């Protein structure tokens, strides 16, 4: 058999095989590498920017299936001040005893000029609202392994979710807008 003939025979087979791979085995799913990931929020208290963070959360990102799911342990928040933490965890704010978890699940994932836009329901303090979260996604080589970097931010209005009850609904000394920032390092895992 001449090499040319072999090549002619193989082309359809290769094409088929490539198509089969694309359908049967899509790219990996990514989950969080907790130690290198941050989820923080900035709020305005008495005219000054103050910061808090969540220490426990999980993220699962499937670029091919266009799915992004985030779970936040609301009890893991910290604003760096014990007195403030005690009131923020209480009934008037996060009410972590009744609402220990917040969830965001993207039901739509669109490509944008700078990355992605994930749109879906965010459930926080028992209230579900549709939010749109823009983020960037990069695969980089770190410490000899390939990891995904998922980074972005979005602005939420705390009162939409009932974060701030009673007198804490006023926004002059405690702003309504809260900027949530995330920088997540993610590792590919088997599906």
């Amino acid at each position: 058999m001449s090499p040319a003939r072999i090549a002619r025979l193989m082309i359809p087979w290769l094409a088929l095989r490539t198509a089969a791979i694309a359908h049967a085995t899509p790219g990996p799913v990514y989950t969080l590498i907790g130690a290198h990931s941050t989820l923080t929020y900035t709020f305005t208290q008495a005219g000054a920017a103050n910061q808090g963070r969540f220490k426990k959360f999980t993220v699962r990102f499937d670029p091919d299936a266009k799915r992004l799911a985030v779970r936040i342990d609301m009890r893991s928040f910290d604003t760096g001040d014990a007195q403030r933490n005690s009131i923020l965890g209480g009934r008037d704010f996060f009410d972590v005893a009744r609402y220990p978890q917040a969830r965001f699940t993207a039901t739509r994932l669109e490509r944008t000029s700078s990355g992605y836009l994930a749109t879906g329901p965010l459930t926080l303090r028992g209230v579900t609202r549709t939010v749109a979260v823009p983020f960037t996604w990069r695969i980089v080589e770190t410490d000899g392994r390939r990891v995904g970097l998922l980074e972005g931010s979005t602005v939420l209005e705390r009162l939409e979710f009932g974060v701030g009850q009673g007198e804490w609904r006023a926004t002059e000394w405690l702003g309504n807008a809260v900027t949530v920032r995330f920088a997540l390092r993610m590792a590919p895992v088997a599906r």
Partner: protein
Amino acid sequence: MLRNTRARWGALSQLLHWLVAALIAVQVALGLVGVALPLSMAKLATLARHKSLGITILALVLIRLLWRLSQPAPALPANLKPYERRLARLTHASLYGLLIALPLTGWIMSSARGFPVSWFNLLQLPNLVTRSVPLYHAMVRVHIALAVALGVILALHVAAAIKHHFVLKDDTLRRMLPGTASARAEASETIKE
């Protein structure tokens, strides 16, 4: 008019003196109420105003000090005994020192607590130190001690002003008041010259 003379304080010195005096009164009230209130929006608002006013006082006192150093201050009354002169100078220096140290310790307190200071919700000031609970508690004690010291020195200052005005009947108080360039002040100035 604006500048000091040897006989009396100029308009700018007078304005800054009485403005700071009024702000100190408001400041003490805000501080006491702010500390007494339970954790609430009212406490947040009161302490935020206390911080804003404190920064305002710091700026006004620094302006006043620079203005004072840029020109001669009125001479102390000639009838003072040497120890009274020393006491007067010490009192005035302490007032400047305390009015600078009090806002600064308050600012350090807020920074150490991790609550950045904003000037009337308009301008966020940088933190002077990184977060430290022990430093915060130490600064609370220093801030309170300085406030008590300010109270003592102010009492002395006011008592001296009253004595000069009502007992010694000289122009010490009057020359810090607008529109009372008394004949006596002018006369004494003429005599000195």
